[in-house]
């Protein structure tokens, strides 16, 4: 049972891939800024799915940035 849980958590950890594409970081930073939310600079992000990210800002803010019904949504986390 313990092993199964461990395996599952490992899989889950890999499912949300932390990535470091500078272009993607800039894109996320621009999106967050366009929505008028404080961030400054995105220092890292996690890709949860297609067009679904969690961006971590330099100032400590975290935002989920995703697309829903053709709109880009930025949610503070």
């Amino acid at each position: 049972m313990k092993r199964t849980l461990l395996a599952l958590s490992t899989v889950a950890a890999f499912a949300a891939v932390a990535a470091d594409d500078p272009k993607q970081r800039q894109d996320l930073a621009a999106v967050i800024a366009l929505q008028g939310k404080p961030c400054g600079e995105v220092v890292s992000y996690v890709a949860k799915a297609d067009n679904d990210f969690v961006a971590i800002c330099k100032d400590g803010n975290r935002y989920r940035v995703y697309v829903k019904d053709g709109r880009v949504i930025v949610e503070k986390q």
Partner: protein
Amino acid sequence: MGARFLMGSVSSGFAALVIVAGCGVVSPPPPTPPPAVEPKAAAKPDAPKAIPPKPATPQTAKAAPPTTSPAPVAAKGPALDLRSLEQRLKDTNAIGVMTKLSLKNQVDDLVAQFRAFHDGHRPPTLTELRRPFELLLMKVLSLLQDQDPALANQINASREAIWSLLSDRDKLAPYL
């Protein structure tokens, strides 16, 4: 797949923006009305003839003589090719995909406000719409200016034309 969908929707949204932008450029805006500073003689009756020997700065020193043709100051870019601008906006690497989509959302929202205005809803008056229009244009320009300054300049040059298109119901109708 998601990215492909995004690009499609971004393309169409941006096409609308470009069409709006490009259409405006056909007739460049009357950017800066010539400064009404001609009554120079009234201030100093005997001064005007003393200045000519010092033509160091062409704009300020040559105000009096009638040779004031070299003042097409504001960015009067070449006539804009709509299709190429559209393509350039789609292709530009200055703006990421999600940013393009986010901009498209905001353009759509603004156009919806103009549509409401043209439909007779008055909370947003034309004067009130000017501010969000300028704000959105500034966002676009600030995103483009560092990495695609030429495109930013072209869009900036068509600012007034875009405004005149948006604020004119008949001009806007074909693009809705």
